């Protein structure tokens, strides 16, 4: 069994990681982003997509370094703007499968405006948001998802702002598909990502991930295992949460699919615009 898993892992690495890219990667030992990378590759493999047709765009931060390792069409854009570039790529060539990977600061602070508008617009894109509740690369400053009261490099007296719930924000902004997973619940995460890529319309997969180096260390969870246990204990499935009282859910977060609804996607709507414009032109 173990041998089979090793062989499968080797196959995926050879198939999807860039051979000419100098490893080791930039992330800290034990970082959750590596788990997300593995999940993303397994999700894509399960869908049988052609690498030539895949685009992965990122912004800036630890998550921004993910695309360089995978053998797709990849782009490492400016801070917070991955979705704007992805929008242009998708509209210019709708046959491409376009995904973005962003961090919590990237997607909801500097890129917050693009994020809610991409959800509203419902372009057929997949947004993977790795939420580690901190700015990791710059040294542990608080982000829009840093919990109230916690410590960071810029909130040493305790954080006085309240956190965004990214997945809930995406639901309200109109995304077709919204899910939340963690780097602890990995088999479930593979499926959540695969479903998001498949889904027509804007898909958001928020992934709770560990930054023990910058967040955990300052908040009594100094190693990956402690943070993994925290994800295990705080995560509540969407169905179970529906039966719980608000007080019971205090400090916890839901995992699973928060929204999966059908709306016409932007590219199919725009095709109608083209037909209408041509029709009016011919009538002249």
């Amino acid at each position, binding site marked *: 069994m173990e041998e089979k898993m090793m062989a499968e892992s080797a196959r995926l690495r050879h198939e999807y990681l*860039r051979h*000419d*890219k*100098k490893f080791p990667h930039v992330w800290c030992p034990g970082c959750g982003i590596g788990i997300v990378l593995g999940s993303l590759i397994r999700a894509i493999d399960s869908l049988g997509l052609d*690498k*030539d*047709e895949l*685009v992965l*765009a990122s912004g800036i931060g630890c998550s921004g370094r993910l*695309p*360089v390792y995978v*053998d*797709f*069409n*990849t*782009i*490492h*854009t*400016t801070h917070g*703007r991955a979705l*704007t*570039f*992805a*929008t*242009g*790529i*998708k*509209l*210019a*060539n709708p*046959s*491409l499968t376009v995904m973005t990977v962003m961090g919590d600061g990237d997607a909801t602070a500097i890129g917050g*405006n*693009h994020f809610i*508008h991409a959800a509203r617009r419902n372009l057929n894109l997949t947004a993977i948001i790795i939420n580690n509740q901190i700015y990791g690369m710059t040294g542990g400053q608080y982000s829009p998802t840093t919990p109230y009261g916690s410590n960071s490099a810029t909130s040493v007296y305790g954080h006085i702002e309240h956190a965004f719930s990214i997945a809930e924000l995406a639901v309200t902004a109109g995304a077709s598909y919204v899910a939340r997973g963690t780097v602890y619940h990995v088999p479930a995460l593979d499926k959540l990502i695969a479903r998001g890529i498949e889904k027509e319309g804007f898909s958001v997969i928020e992934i709770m991930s560990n930054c023990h180096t910058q967040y955990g260390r300052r908040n009594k969870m100094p190693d990956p295992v402690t943070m993994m246990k925290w994800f295990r204990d705080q995560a509540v499935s969407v169905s179970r949460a529906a039966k719980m009282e608000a007080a019971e859910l205090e400090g916890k977060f839901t995992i699973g699919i928060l929204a999966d609804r059908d709306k016409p996607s932007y590219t199919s709507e*725009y095709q109608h*615009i*083209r037909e*209408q*414009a*041509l029709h009016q*032109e011919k009538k002249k």
Partner: protein
Amino acid sequence: MDSKQSGTISLLQGNEAIVKGALAAGCRFFAGYPITPASEIAELMSINLPKVGGTFIQMEDEIAGIGAIIGASLAGVKSLTATSGPGFSLMQENLGFACITETPCVIVNVMRGGPSTGLPTSPGQGDVMQARWGTHGIHPIVVLSVSSVLDSFEITIHAFNISEKYRIPVIILSDEVVAHTRESITIPDQTGFEEVNRIKPSVPPEWYHPYEDNSRGVPPMASFGDGYRHHVTGLVHDVHGYPTQRVDEIDAFQRRQFRKITNGFYEIQMTKSTMLDDAEIAVIAYGSVSRSALRAIKMARERGIKAGLLHLITLFPFPRQTAEQVLRQCRAVLVPEMNLGQISREVKRVNLSSKIEKINRIDGQLITPEEIFKKLLEM
């Protein structure tokens, strides 16, 4: 392009002519955000692009507008955005991304008075240095200016061609007067245009190095989806497109960016000379001010003063040699601008020994032919 060739006569605004030029050049994608006095470009693109199979999208801000056009260009589609001062300021970071990734795209800035919200419905030329140096770090860039409706059409085609040929973002500086003036122009028949497209790789994908140097300094560009899977990054990168910290690779990369533009300098630099052959004094002008200057030198000639005009179309790279000739020949040169002297500094940088005079208006008003004429009389 010969404007007298057969075609359709149209009464157009400068902004409309930019749209016609962009479509003629093969532009099939526009993303932008409404702003006076550039909004007509977006409106007309939203009407016309879907008719030709192109795509228009109104984004949430100008940062998103330029992000989307860079993305579309990477997917192989010629792209345009248009804005004015405040929006142009917002675009600067992503403009640098287009520079470092050598992504062709065209950005129109219809200049208004500034800074900040400034004078939304009045012309200005305050963004010349911003167009050259607005994004951080060392980078080459091409900046073209338009002075009339015909220019707005023709120069937009040139802008796309230069952008594609050299893999560089090209900025078109218009101004509120050019943008909203209506003039009759002849749009030549489609077949008359030269349309330049970026060179695509011909090697098999496994041999493709997206940023490898060659004699032109312009590597062939594969689009996403072409089967040439590669990495694009705003970090300084090696020939594979991967981030590098190697000193030799960084230096070679940075220098190639400038070399490709130096190589193409004679093609990129565009100027128009009027009555310069025997001129003793000259005006160097661009944008709507060059229209007043043209009238002024004619008025001067009527008085027997040997005046000429060097009308700059390319502002950057600055047409140094052409300016040098004028400076060598004329005893005095006048540089009128709707700012406190931005191109006049460039002229001074190449100056030999001529006297350089300025007229500067910063009150949102056009510099009139009479003002220039009066100054010529004093020179």
